[in-house]
């Protein structure tokens, strides 16, 4: 055994040695622990000792002390019971001077905090100030943050526009017309539109900007532009996949009274990305009614897939969609293979997932319509001897509810099996 090489304890245990760096590392971990446990006083206590790090050169470290202090200080001041907004603002102003490379980021986060606190005007002022900031080449480097700042200012302009619009509508109802308000409103529109248009050109997730911009465009009647914007947002592959984009497009088309065909095509991708989306009911409803076989087939797939998700288990509307379609197919005796296809991958687990005896009892107690629809589906797919159907129909007949008797008769006559 080579006993002359250094052992672990001699190399690593430096418990009784201490230097500036180690001391601050330890301090930082105490701060972080306190933050995680929401002990704001304790976090403040240790942060007080940590701030000395600002006086030392850490330029080679990954995250500098100034950034740490900004982020941690923000958390503490935001949550600490004795801290006021005034103190918070004062702190942030100091942080702005600390790191020029982070200046716009700090401004932006400050604005978010102000908005959370309901201080819209202050937020707007800060955004304007930040927008006018120039600092040599940093301005170009922080271009992204600048765009965001402009976008949020545009958003606040939209918000002001919206307020003016509401005032105008109220006055309109009363028969007053207010030129000044109208002028102001148009002014906000122009300011907002310019900035919002810019940001949504850049690939990203800009739900709120898109919505606001489209709202503006619709109000002023520029439906083409609005449609264009929404199409870009939903279909441009450079943009990250975003279910909301499709939802917005769909809602827009619906408002515009577009054809079912275009509405259906708008929801297609949504079904692919989020098969459990609530709009799947609308989707299925439209598809069921379609004359095209392919669409009806898709409809069946859509509703089955939606009901694969636990969140839909007790959705009576969804079950009624499925029940309607299955019933229709069984009666017409056409396309039974569709049901077969959909059921083949589900027959092993849907019975336990949806049609257990326990659920039968519960559904019956809580929601009779739900149990009706489910029983119909269960009876058709699993036969009249399945637990769910037996229980519900029995209960229903016992309670002398007409539709349950009809149900029993119907299932006895038909069944997919």
């Amino acid at each position, binding site marked *: 055994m080579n006993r002359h090489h250094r052992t672990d304890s001699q190399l690593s245990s430096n*418990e*009784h040695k201490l230097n500036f760096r180690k*001391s601050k590392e*330890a301090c930082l971990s105490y701060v972080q622990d306190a933050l995680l446990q929401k002990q704001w*006083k304790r976090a403040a206590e240790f942060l007080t*000792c940590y701030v*000395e790090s600002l006086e030392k050169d850490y330029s080679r470290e990954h995250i500098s002390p100034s950034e740490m202090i900004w982020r941690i200080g923000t958390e503490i*001041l935001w949550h600490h019971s004795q801290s006021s907004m005034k103190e918070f603002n004062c702190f942030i102003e*100091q942080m702005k001077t600390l790191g020029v490379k982070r200046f716009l980021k700090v401004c932006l986060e400050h604005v978010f905090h102000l908005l959370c606190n309901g201080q819209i005007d202050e937020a707007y002022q800060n955004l304007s100030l930040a927008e006018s900031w120039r600092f040599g080449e940093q301005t170009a480097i922080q271009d992204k943050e600048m765009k965001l700042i402009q976008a949020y200012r545009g958003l606040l302009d939209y918000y002001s526009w919206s307020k003016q619009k509401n005032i105008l509508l109220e006055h309109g109802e009363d028969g007053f017309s207010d030129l000044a308000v109208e002028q102001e409103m148009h002014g906000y529109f122009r300011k907002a539109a310019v900035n919002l248009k810019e940001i949504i050109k850049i690939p990203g997730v800009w739900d709120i900007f898109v919505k606001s911009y489209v709202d503006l465009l619709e109000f002023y009647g520029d439906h083409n532009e609005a449609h264009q914007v929404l199409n870009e947002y939903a279909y441009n592959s450079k943009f990250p996949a975003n279910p909301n984009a499709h939802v917005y497009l769909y809602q827009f088309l619906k408002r515009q009274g577009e054809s079912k065909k275009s509405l259906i095509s708008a929801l297609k991708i949504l079904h692919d990305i989020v098969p459990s989306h609530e709009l799947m009911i609308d989707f299925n409803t439209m598809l069921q009614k379609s004359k095209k076989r392919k669409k009806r087939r898709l409809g069946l797939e859509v509703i089955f897939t939606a009901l694969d998700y636990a969140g839909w288990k007790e959705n009576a509307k969804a079950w009624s969609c499925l029940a309607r379609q299955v019933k229709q197919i069984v009666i017409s005796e056409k396309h039974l293979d569709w049901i077969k296809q959909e059921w083949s991958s589900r027959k092993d687990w849907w019975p336990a997932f949806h049609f257990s005896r326990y659920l039968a009892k519960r559904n019956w107690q809580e929601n009779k319509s739900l149990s009706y629809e489910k029983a119909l589906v269960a009876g058709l797919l699993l036969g009249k001897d399945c637990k769910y159907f037996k229980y519900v129909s029995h209960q229903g007949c016992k309670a002398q509810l007409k539709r349950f008797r009809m149900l029993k008769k119907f299932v006895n006559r038909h069944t997919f099996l």
Partner: protein
Amino acid sequence: MDEEDTRDFNERCAQCSEVNWGLTDGGGFYCRSCHNVIERTREVVNTDFITNSRVQTISKGSKKQEKSEGGCEWYVCEGFQLVLKKQVEALEALGVHPQMKDEILCNFWRCYLQKSKQAYCKRPAAEAVKTLSVCESSTDVDSDPERPSVLHLLSLSESEGDLQTDCSSFASSVSKVSESTSVYSGSVDGSLYLMKNQKEKLRMTMPMTLSFCYMALLWMREPITLSEFLRFVVEGHIPYLNVFEHFPEKMKLCGLDLKIFCVESWPVYEEVFNKMHELAAYLDLPRFPDITESCFLHPDMLCMKYLMEANLPDELHNWTCRVVKKIGIGEVDFLTLMPGNKSTRKVKYDVLAAAVIIVVLKLLFLLDDRYEWLLSEFAEERNKNNTEGAHYFEFKRWYEVVKHSLDVKQKKLDEERAKYLWRCEKPLFYSVKKKSKVLKRRQMVVNLQNQFGKLSGSVQRAKKPNPSSFQLSWSEENADGSCFHGHSLKGVLQEKCGLLTAMNPDYWLCTVKLCNEKLCGHLAHYREVEFPQSYHFVLGLFSFLLRIQPSYIHDEVCMIEHKLFNKKLYKKLKYNTVLRK
């Protein structure tokens, strides 16, 4: 008396070129060979002499600094002298005898200056220096507004041309300062200081000031161990961190001075200890005053102290004394420092005493994670049944009590380490360019400290607690029986042939073979996993009290064991680790 005052002045006489100075009645210097009287006086160096144009040219030429208002020229050694002065004053305030300041440390320092000046200047015919000892004169450094430079490192008989080139060549080669390429320091010789060839002499550093102090303390045999002294330093009772705060306004500190005087780590026991020994040898000091049995630093005394602090029974003291006697570590010659003697092992009094206690515990309790608990159970039984008579010492209970206290203290210490503040009000900056930035930063730090300090709630930064020699204290008045001093060891002892011996018949050695300390720095290599938990706990306890790594105590334990079992080890030559006593 003449000799003493003129001894350090070795300038050649202008008239006869002899170096043979005497003092007139008026205190002035005169050449004994030719009776030429010069302006130099014993007490105060004439200011004319100082503002000699040659001196000014030299210092101007070497630096690009502009002298700020009120700034004076000062040399690094002056800075250290001031540091030492502050430190020794603090020690005096703690109760150390004033003789340490006025005589001992003073002389050590002067001796050091003499020795090091011989190799300090690059010139072969290095002239010695006349030091204006701050210690001996009552003039406070601060009070004299026209105080000239205290030290004259530069010989005035040599041409200034040489020195200029020396300085400028150093200036261009040193570039530790990140931004500026020009060497910059508030002191006159900052850059010189850092660049000097360190082979022959010991260059003064901040940790070395502590070595100086400790050396003086040891010479005076003051009742303070090195670990205690360093603990006081860390706790702030002895100026060390940010001691430059005490420098007078005129002594501007910047540039390379920061590298010399700024401290950003706690002093390390081994470093201070080793440097002290180096220093003692370097200064050619004679044998230190004897450490006898009545001395605080004697193992018998220190063992008593540590036994109390560790909450162990007083009866154990008999055993520690026996061990000390048996292996001869209580001998005067073993304990007393003989500088320059490379053959004897340097004695760490505190570590030694702690190690003796641990060996005694091993002797009586074995500490193999089984036997001590067994003994404890017996003692517990016996204590339950006999409520009168002496209470038998129960290892288990002791462990629980001490562990609890230790954990609490350790946790507190850990937090203190994290909350340690390193910076002070006096800002430091490398160059004038950086000054405004540094001041701004400082202001911001203070603002933030105030803002978040208020949010810390009622937890205010406690004032420095008074320095205390005992970190753990146990009182017999406590009704909860948490004090073990008076407990009896009867439960682990037996009588054999009229002598009390341990019931424990076994002993395990920490290591069968000692390493060569000179090769790998240690006598043994301690790894927690290789040793019983009880042993680790006991090591940890003393490691905490002395603020040093457990491995250093482990080394001493090994050393003591090898002395104790010397005969058995070398007779048998077996690699069996369990021996019968």
